[in-house]
């Protein structure tokens, strides 16, 4: 074999090796527009959107700085506000810190309140039921309904463990009548460097087989919880744009300190399962610029820091992602699909 042939063989081997080993999907994952609509909402925020079966959109507007203005709103197909559901408050039928909403198969809206309360509203706005989350009790951050299996999950931060360096993450399962079934703890003690209790924001979603995918704002980790066995798997969220908040004792956090530092860190904000992908959004609390980390349901990270058109606010039954972008006329709701551009067959 001549020197030329040896060189050629070496180059060929290197090329084949690179093509096989390098993650081909990472560069191929992208977003493509499906449709877009305009909500004629010129004030407040759009934190979460749920498509209702009648073609309307349920919108959660939540702002800690303007808590009395938070709302659960229904918008029609024409983008106009049809109805506001419930109101700010701490009593039955109110919401104090409206962290999450979910929609049942019958079209009822479930509102999860940090104030340890779950309320079920009809789309017409009637309070069907209000439940206290007290046995065990904890501030609720997220709710995931799994009506096919007759259960729902609540995630949040256990108030008694807020100062613990081991973290306060809490995930409980209840039957649909509200009876507590079991907890999935401890999630992961290795992940947490120090207490970041002030910044804890939990988000979760379920896949078709009922597995829970969950993130906690200050930690670059995606958890997958198997409800049947209780097993908890941990996948690192690799990102260059993620800057975790500083670990600081709760007692030292003041409004002044927060206002100075809040623009310096980002957090994992939302997790959405759109089979076969699990999408985690990364955003600074003070910015609309959002990036996505895309995983498959086995926990392999397929895309890093994929730019998104706006904050991730939900997903549709068809497996598309919903983003919200503020414009002078209102909020554009952008429905986009994850595609593998030029994926090899």
């Amino acid at each position, binding site marked *: 074999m001549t020197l030329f042939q040896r060189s050629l063989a070496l180059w060929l081997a290197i090329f084949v090796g690179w093509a096989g080993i390098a993650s081909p999907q990472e560069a191929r994952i992208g977003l493509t527009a499906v449709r877009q609509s305009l909500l004629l909402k010129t004030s407040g925020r759009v934190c979460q959107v749920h498509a209702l079966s009648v073609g309307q959109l349920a919108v959660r507007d939540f702002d800690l700085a303007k808590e009395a203005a938070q709302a659960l709103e229904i918008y029609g197909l024409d983008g106009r506000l049809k109805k506001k559901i419930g109101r700010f*408050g*701490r*009593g039955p039928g*109110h919401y104090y810190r409206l962290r999450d909403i979910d929609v049942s198969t019958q079209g009822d809206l479930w509102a999860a309140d940090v104030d340890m*309360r779950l309320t079920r509203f009809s789309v017409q706005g009637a309070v069907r039921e209000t439940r*206290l989350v*007290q046995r065990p*009790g904890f501030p609720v951050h997220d709710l995931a309904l799994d009506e096919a299996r007759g259960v729902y999950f609540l995630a949040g931060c256990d108030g*008694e463990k807020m100062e613990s360096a081991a973290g306060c993450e809490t995930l409980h399962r209840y039957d649909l009548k509200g009876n507590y079934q079991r907890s999935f703890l401890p999630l992961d003690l290795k992940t947490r460097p120090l207490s970041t209790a002030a910044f804890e924001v939990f988000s979760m979603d379920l896949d078709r087989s009922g597995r829970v995918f969950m993130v906690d704002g200050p930690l670059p980790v995606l958890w997958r919880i198997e409800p049947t066995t209780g097993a908890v798997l941990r996948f690192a969220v690799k990102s260059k744009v993620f800057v975790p908040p500083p670990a600081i004792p709760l007692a030292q956090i003041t409004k002044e300190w927060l206002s100075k530092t809040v623009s310096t860190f980002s957090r994992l904000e939302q997790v959405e399962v759109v089979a076969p992908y699990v999408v985690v959004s990364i955003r600074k609390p003070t910015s609309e610029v959002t990036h996505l980390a895309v995983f498959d349901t086995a926990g392999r990270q397929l895309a890093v820091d994929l730019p998104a058109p706006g904050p991730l606010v939900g997903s549709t039954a068809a497996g598309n992602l919903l983003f919200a972008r503020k414009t002078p006329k209102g909020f554009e709701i952008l429905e986009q699909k994850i595609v593998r551009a030029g994926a090899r067959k």
Partner: protein
Amino acid sequence: VSTAPAAVLPGDGRARGGGAFYAACIVALLCCTAALAWQTVRLRKALDNDFSGADPRALPALLSAPLPSAAGRTVRLGDLLQSKALIFVFTPGDCAACLPEMEDLERIQAMRPDIRVVGLMAHTNADEARQTATNFGISFPVLVDADGRLLAALRIPKTPWKMVIDTRQGRIYFQDPPSLTALERQAFVDRITRLGRE
């Protein structure tokens, strides 16, 4: 004309330099004092904003208003109380964090039978109050301030809120915001167990 140099007293220059040094020190001290005073005023203001405390002027209304109880009766708080009372003001949503405080109140009730502990649960109804009392094992009586009107009248800035009151004179002995740490909780228990024995 004498050309002899003027007499220079020994240490004169040093004395003039020393004076400037002392003046600079005094100015620096004054600046520090002013900055400290300003910080103190700011801190006090911030604390006042957060914990301005309950307004004792609304205590007579609290004591005389007929309120539904978690046990299903309607009672006046004043009828339940002895001369000293510990009013624990809270909402159903407070109870995850205030569970340790609840245990403290049960201890206080056992240690100081002369101080009646009563819960005032706001922004709820009698059913939820009963459920909350059961869920958290509350043994002291709980009254319901359904729409939070009394809470607003008392100007209680946040819940859970604790106040030890003199029911006859309608004055507040002392009051505490939520206890966040074990040390704060212990300080409250110590303070209340010493009340009237000092």
